[in-house]
């Protein structure tokens, strides 16, 4: 076949830069790609011409030789014998991509079960399944809130192709833990079972709680009088607020334990504990009376902390 001038094919000037050539090619390819125009032989021919022209002009050496008249346009025509996707898509081998990403596929896992034109026309199934193969496993990551991981939650994962997976985050799930969702992987072929989905859990940090194993740690500010005289304060736990007694003479760093307020250990079904670390906070405003009182008290009660 006689080849047209590649500049003419792409509709660019002889002086066009590499970017302009690439842009011109992309513009044409969007319109002429054979897989986007199945059944149109003329467009396929046009695309081959455009593709050959582009591959010549995109190659600086070939372009130089063409410009210098060393080779003609057909001199670089690649033997483009590749098969496009469309050659398979309409044959039986394209079956597994039918009904791609539709809900029917998720529920039934059988390719071709989706909106089958023939089923609608004649009320019967068309494609016989001969292949039988378990579906592939697949991995995802899901981010959950701190409390969802601690207490357990029902989560929903929406994949890019629209498939939706509902799964349970068991109580006490830890950062990095991988949940196996049986049968939620790729659909099997034929009547073979689907693969499994593996979901790696990422736990968001909580503003107050931190976790160490099955125990919860929390720092709690207390007033000077609560620390010195003792008292009862409200403390948040993963179940909600509870009352906690502060013993008389507590200090910054005093650690108190709330038994059974940690997270569930799935193996033992026992809950860990919550540890509350106290932090004595003085009044935020300067207080003259407090200063006088401490001054008087300090005279008779020197103590060392360093």
């Amino acid at each position, binding site marked *: 076949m006689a080849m047209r001038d590649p500049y003419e094919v792409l509709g660019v000037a002889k002086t066009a830069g590499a970017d302009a050539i690439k842009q011109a*090619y*992309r513009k044409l*390819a*969007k319109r002429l*790609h054979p*897989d*986007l125009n*199945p*059944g149109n032989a003329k467009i396929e021919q046009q695309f081959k011409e455009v593709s050959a022209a582009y591959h010549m002009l995109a190659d600086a050496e070939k372009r130089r030789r063409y410009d210098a008249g060393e080779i003609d346009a057909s001199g670089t025509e690649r033997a483009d014998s*590749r*098969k*496009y*996707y*469309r*050659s*398979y*898509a*309409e*044959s039986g*081998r*394209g079956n*597994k*991509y*039918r*009904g*791609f*990403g539709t809900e029917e596929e998720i529920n039934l896992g059988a390719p071709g079960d989706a*909106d*089958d*034109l*023939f089923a609608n*026309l004649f009320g019967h199934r*068309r494609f016989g399944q001969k292949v039988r*193969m*378990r*579906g*592939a*496993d*697949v*991995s*995802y990551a899901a981010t959950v809130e701190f409390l969802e991981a601690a207490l357990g939650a029902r989560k929903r994962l929406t*994949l*890019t*192709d*629209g*498939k939706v997976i509902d799964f349970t985050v068991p109580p006490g799930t830890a950062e990095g833990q991988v949940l196996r969702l049986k049968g939620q992987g*790729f659909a099997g*072929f034929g009547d073979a079972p689907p*693969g499994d989905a593996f979901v790696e859990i990422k736990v968001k940090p909580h503003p107050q709680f931190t976790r160490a194993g099955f125990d919860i740690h929390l720092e709690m500010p207390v007033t000077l009088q609560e620390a010195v005289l003792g008292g009862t304060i409200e403390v948040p736990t993963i179940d909600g607020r509870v009352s906690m007694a502060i013993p008389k003479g507590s200090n910054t760093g005093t650690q108190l334990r709330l038994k059974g307020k940690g997270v569930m250990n799935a193996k033992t079904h026992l809950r860990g504990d919550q540890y509350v670390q106290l932090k004595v906070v003085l009044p935020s405003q300067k207080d003259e009376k407090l200063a006088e009182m401490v001054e008087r008290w300090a005279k008779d009660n020197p103590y060392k902390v360093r």
Partner: protein
Amino acid sequence: MSWTMDQAAAEIGVERTVIVSWIEQHWVLPAASGGDYLFEEVDLARLRLINELLDELQIGEEAMPIVLNLLDQLYEARAALGELETAIAGCSDAVRDEIEARIARRG
């Protein structure tokens, strides 16, 4: 003919991890075989198409599921049409004439 993950990645000219992300998004559905994937000719042609859509045709990752979904519907419809044609070709002359007349009257 079939390709392993490494062979497919080399053939298409992209990293393994890229193909893995396409698989995870269900853009391509290779068979699983002994811990590796097995790409058939249709899968390889689809990988090449996805690569060209992303690279040369500048279809963004976000739009890719829509484009693939529409293409799959197009091919499914075309396949069905092809079978319909074959079926009609096998009908008696009288039936074919009637179908032709009905199609001619449409609209």
